[in-house]
């Protein structure tokens, strides 16, 4: 009889544990979790923004990156709004959602920066250095033609004066 009685609570506990295992309880995000996620999202966005700006300064086309930043920014705005309205679950979700799209932004911005710097150097070499060298070449060629013509005329003049003397 004693054994029978003690079995009931054990069976209930086992049943409860099984239920807990089968149906996961919703996890409520705490205010601190949401705040941390928002802070982390802000830092990531800021790092991406700085990398993007460097790429732009190097002359890269950053339209696509700016589009991605705006998408992440929109999610961050929603996260901040949710946080302000004490909806910490939504705040956490939005803040976490804003991060994946930014994963490759810094590498992408750095790659664009490298390409832009290379193109700019190439452009400088062709358009500035090439142009300056070309200008000097044209001026020197002009002088060369002038000296050639001058000499030709002088020789022709000498010949004509010699023939007239003869």
């Amino acid at each position, binding site marked *: 009889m004693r054994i029978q009685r003690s079995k009931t609570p054990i069976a209930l506990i086992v049943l409860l544990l099984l239920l807990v295992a089968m149906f996961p309880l919703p996890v409520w995000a705490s205010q601190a979790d949401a705040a941390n996620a928002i802070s982390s999202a802000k830092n990531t966005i800021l790092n991406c923004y700085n990398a993007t700006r460097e790429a732009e300064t190097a002359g890269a086309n950053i339209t696509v990156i700016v589009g991605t930043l705006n998408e992440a920014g929109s999610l961050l705005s929603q996260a901040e709004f949710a946080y302000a309205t004490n909806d910490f679950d939504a705040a956490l979700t939005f803040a976490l959602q804003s991060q994946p799209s930014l994963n490759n932004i810094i590498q992408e911005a750095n790659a664009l920066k490298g390409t832009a710097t290379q193109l700019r150097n190439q452009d400088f070499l062709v*358009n500035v250095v090439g142009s300056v060298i070309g200008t000097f070449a044209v001026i020197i060629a002009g002088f060369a033609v002038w000296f050639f013509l001058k000499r030709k005329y002088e020789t022709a003049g000498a010949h004509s004066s010699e023939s007239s003397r003869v």
Partner: protein
Amino acid sequence: MNLQEYKTLLFVVTAVLALLVSSPALQRLLVYPQTEFFTEMWLLGPEHKAENFPFNITSNSNYNIFLGIGNHLGSCAYYSIQVKFRNQTQPAADSFNRTASSLPPLYGITVFVADKETWEIPIAFSFAYAYDEDPFNATLSQVKFNNVMFNGVALDLSGYSATWDSERNGFFGNLFFELWIYNDTLGDFQYHERYIGLWFNMAV
């Protein structure tokens, strides 16, 4: 053709050719540096024109406008547009002192705009409000706001109200947008001295 004529022709041909060849380099040298750095901010009406802005509005009706930004700061900028609402007596942003309104923002829009680029979004909004009646005069004494639906997000306006403006004959509310910009030195957003907004007559 004598030598003197050749000299002139040669000089002209050389000069023209030299100018042509040097034009890519001159193009870079003769560009005036950008001297004015600023941000544009605009509102457009429902037809994407500066006309037909909503003014007489009714509770729970939808209205559309466009909000835009143009960046001429010389580099990509990180903006925050703070959406605020006020009645006739509450403080607005100050154009003369270049200060933002002290009212709390209802919503913040995070925006990135590349240099010489623009950004624009359509805004759909509707106000939910109710009237208070004066029992002695049987007239409407004030408008009490519940919320404003801003692109599908309900922004709480409880505590906001507008009283009868006897000069302009109406209950007025002002939805305005302040532009803030991220300052690297401060490590925070600072007011960019630009705001734009619309006054609404809260009709029955």
